[in-house]
């Protein structure tokens, strides 16, 4: 039996109550951002525990952002050994990676992240994302998954939803110069700012990952972004071939096109909605990320997590897509929220 080894750090000094003031050190350090989201949000951040599975250019950008923001703790799970490939988009991997002996991606990034903000507990979480069970997810308030198989993502998302504690789930993928962020906040209530009026309480209900990717394509609005479909085709392909995420090349194209045809036929979508050129691009990219796109996606994801922890600001519901080819950033709500009927 595989025992899941996890290192968990005890909270130093216990969790603070909301009545406790920020320390002078925190007030000085966080001055500029407190002026954006307020003292209360800063306190909530300092109590939040975040898990990131999958260390790559995008998730490291995200980690940088939330560590600077001052979350309570950050756990990194990624035991892949660091290689030179990691230098292309991950700014925390030392450039002389091969000379530094053998370390995992999580280990390689951990110390630098601690340096960004000594008040945040940053630790390596040893383990396999595909084995993250209910007990494990319960230690966290936010879980971000990247570069994991669909099966793993579904498993983790499902476990998050099983807990009575509110655990927000995000998945992010950056391929080439485009990317997808998926958000599942389950039930999220927050105060929405109204221009020139009193803030209003909002209640949002999110779909699970399973629900979000199982919507029959014929039920989706015509303008739904091509990236949504393309990502689903690749996901299915990797799943059916038992591939590691991103472990694809251009030589897979014919098989992927067949996959596309199969899915489009089943779900009554015209194949032209998923351009061959786009699939080519994503296949050729594999796991390769463009650094500027990592910064964009990491920035957006960072702010999403901050919004969810602080319950301030309108969160993305529930997909965000960015594509440098046209420069567009698009939000999709899938499955679409039914429009309320007015009497």
């Amino acid at each position, binding site marked *: 039996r595989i025992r899941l080894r996890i290192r968990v750090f005890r909270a130093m000094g216990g969790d603070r109550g909301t009545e406790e003031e920020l320390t*002078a050190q925190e007030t*000085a*350090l*966080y*001055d*500029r*951002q407190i*002026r*954006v*989201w307020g003292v209360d949000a800063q306190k909530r951040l300092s109590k939040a525990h975040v898990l990131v599975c999958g260390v790559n*250019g995008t998730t490291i*950008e995200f980690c*940088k*952002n939330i560590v*600077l*923001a*001052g979350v309570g703790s950050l756990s990194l799970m990624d035991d892949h050994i660091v290689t*030179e*490939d990691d*230098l*292309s988009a991950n*700014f925390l991997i030392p*450039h002389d990676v091969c000379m530094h002996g053998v370390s995992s991606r999580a280990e390689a990034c951990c110390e630098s992240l601690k340096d*960004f*903000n*000594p008040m945040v507990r940053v630790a390596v979480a040893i383990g396999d994302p595909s084995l993250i069970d209910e007990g494990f997810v319960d230690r966290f308030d936010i879980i971000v998954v990247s570069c994991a198989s669909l099966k793993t993502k579904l498993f983790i998302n499902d476990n998050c939803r099983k807990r009575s504690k509110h655990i927000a789930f995000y998945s992010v993928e950056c391929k*080439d*110069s*485009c990317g997808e962020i998926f958000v599942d906040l389950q039930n999220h209530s927050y105060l929405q700012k109204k221009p020139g009026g009193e803030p209003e309480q909002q209640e949002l209900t999110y779909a699970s990952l399973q629900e979000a990717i199982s919507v029959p394509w014929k039920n989706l609005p015509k303008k739904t972004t091509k990236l949504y479909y393309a990502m689903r085709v690749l996901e299915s392909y990797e799943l059916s071939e038992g591939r590691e995420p991103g472990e694809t090349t251009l030589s897979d194209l014919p098989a992927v096109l067949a996959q596309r045809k199969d899915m489009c036929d089943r779900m009554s979508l015209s194949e032209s909605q998923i351009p061959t*050129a*786009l699939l*080519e*691009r994503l296949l*050729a*990219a594999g796991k*390769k990320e*463009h*650094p*500027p*796109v*990592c*910064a*964009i996606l990491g*920035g*957006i994801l*960072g*702010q999403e997590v901050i919004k969810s922890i602080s319950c301030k*600001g*309108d969160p*993305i519901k529930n997909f*965000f897509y960015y*594509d*440098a*080819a*046209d*420069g*567009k*950033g*698009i*939000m999709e709500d899938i499955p679409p929220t039914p429009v309320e009927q007015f009497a």
Partner: protein
Amino acid sequence: MAAMFGGIVGQEPENTRYDAQISVFGSKLQNKLEQAKIFMVGSGALGCEFLKNLALMGISCSQNGKLTVTDDDVIEKSNLSRQFLFRDWNIGQPKSTVAATAAMAINPKLHVEALQNRASPETENVFNDAFWENLDAVVNALDNVTARMYIDSRCVYFQKPLLESGTLGAKCNAQMVIPHLTENYGASRDPPEKQAPMCTVHSFPHNIDHCLTWARSEFEGLLEKTPTEVNGFLSNPSVYVAAARTAGDAQARDQLERVIECLHGDKCETFQDCITWARLKFEDYFSNRVKQLTYTFPEDSMTSSGAPFWSAPKRFPRPLEFSSTDPSQLNFILAASILRAETFGIPIPDWAKTRNKVAAEAVDKVIVPEFQPKQGVKIVTDEKATSISSASVDDAGVIEELITKLEQISKTLPPGFHMNPIQFEKDDDTNFHMDVIAGFANMRARNYSIPEVDKLKAKFIAGRIIPAIATATAMATGLVCLELYKVLAGGHKVEDYRNTFANLAIPLFSIAEPVPPKTIKHKDLSWTVWDRWTVTGNITLRELLEWLKEKGLNAYSISCGTSLLYNSMFPRHKERLDRKVADVAREVAKMEVPSYRRHLDVVVACEDDDDNDVDIPLVSVYFR
């Protein structure tokens, strides 16, 4: 949209860290990126993010490439929440050098030079013509509009692409300025922030912003400007005095009065003197001046048009009664005394820093003279007035008297006497600066029944702080770097570029193609801000005027840099008409024309035949 992204070159990976880019753009473009010569202005929040991106992308990462980064600022604690290349132990060190070193740790091939010059007209000897001409692109990483406008003007002059971005809280934007393709940054500006009229700030505040603006201005005047003036006089008395005589105006008179006050009337030698000064200032600002104001303009007074003088938004002030039992008042006096002591180099006793009986007693010891408001005191009420000093007929005479008095006083000063001007530093919570400013503002607010503010809010307004977060900063630089690929690749049309505005709080993500530059037409000619007209030959001013006349333009003024070469309204300039433009520049305008310089750029003001002004491009005269 050109397939900069969205396609694959299908090139074989070269087993470098740039394989992701090479497989999309090809190794030829990758080489171009590595050899790029970039000027990055600013090394703070945006700067750190840019350096990280550039290091990863391989931009300027070769001996032939070069990234020049400049910033005159040093690192402080509140920077660390965004400027992740800095650590606690870097506080006090220059931003540019620390950031450059940290970026080289990400990619040792980064060829970067870190400077500490503010990019402004004063550093054009550092950032000279050769420097600018050699650049491929300029990236702004600035936090103020003034610097942005200056860099924009340089980029227009040298025809260089400018990649501009900024953040404000959760909002960010990226704007591309490409020579000949887009409008320049200065072409469309936000309307200028409305500044309150001087008399509102000085006598008729009606909100806390007015009080804080006034507070900051008084702080700077009393604790920075006057001590600086004093030192200016002491270091070179004859020069200082001569300058005051030459100026001979109300402002010079005011300044002399303040210097004398500092060295004579209000001079402090002990800490108790400083307490006296602070207590009397309190009485002056928050009691006497209010009594004088309401004496000159009683509550029921009328304006010349018969309306009540004190109608909204004016608020009728009431004088404050000092009491050392009021913590906020006592705090203010103590903080002000401490800073006053600093300017005189007087040691500060421990009890001054705590609000206790000893402190209260020291303040109560001060003898405060009775005040009687006077008749005939002039108080500025005109909203359009830009100066509070009221000119009098005999300023020059008064100045002479003041100079005599000043010279007498200076003989009584101990040798080596000098003052220590204080520069407002908002982020040091132990320096009492914000205590004084918030105190000034809140006491004033109390006079005018305006709600007071806490130190945090006061710091925000008085310190002109910009709220900032790492996420928006990271995103802005990501967006710019995508455009930078296009700029360095070259050959892209305006439709290929993207300006982006995003608000991460909502979230909102909106893009647009940059706007082409405005075209100006005249007869059958058209041009934009990017164009230059060229004239070859070592021509005379007259020949230049005739060349323009042929285009239907009547030139009436020709200048080069900041020097006027010719203006039709000065009769003696007629003598210059048959002299060579280059010679006039050198000899009359005393311009330096180095031997490698083959052309001069002149600004010509023209009218058409209907006497309408026509904004023509810069004219380059190639005289060699």
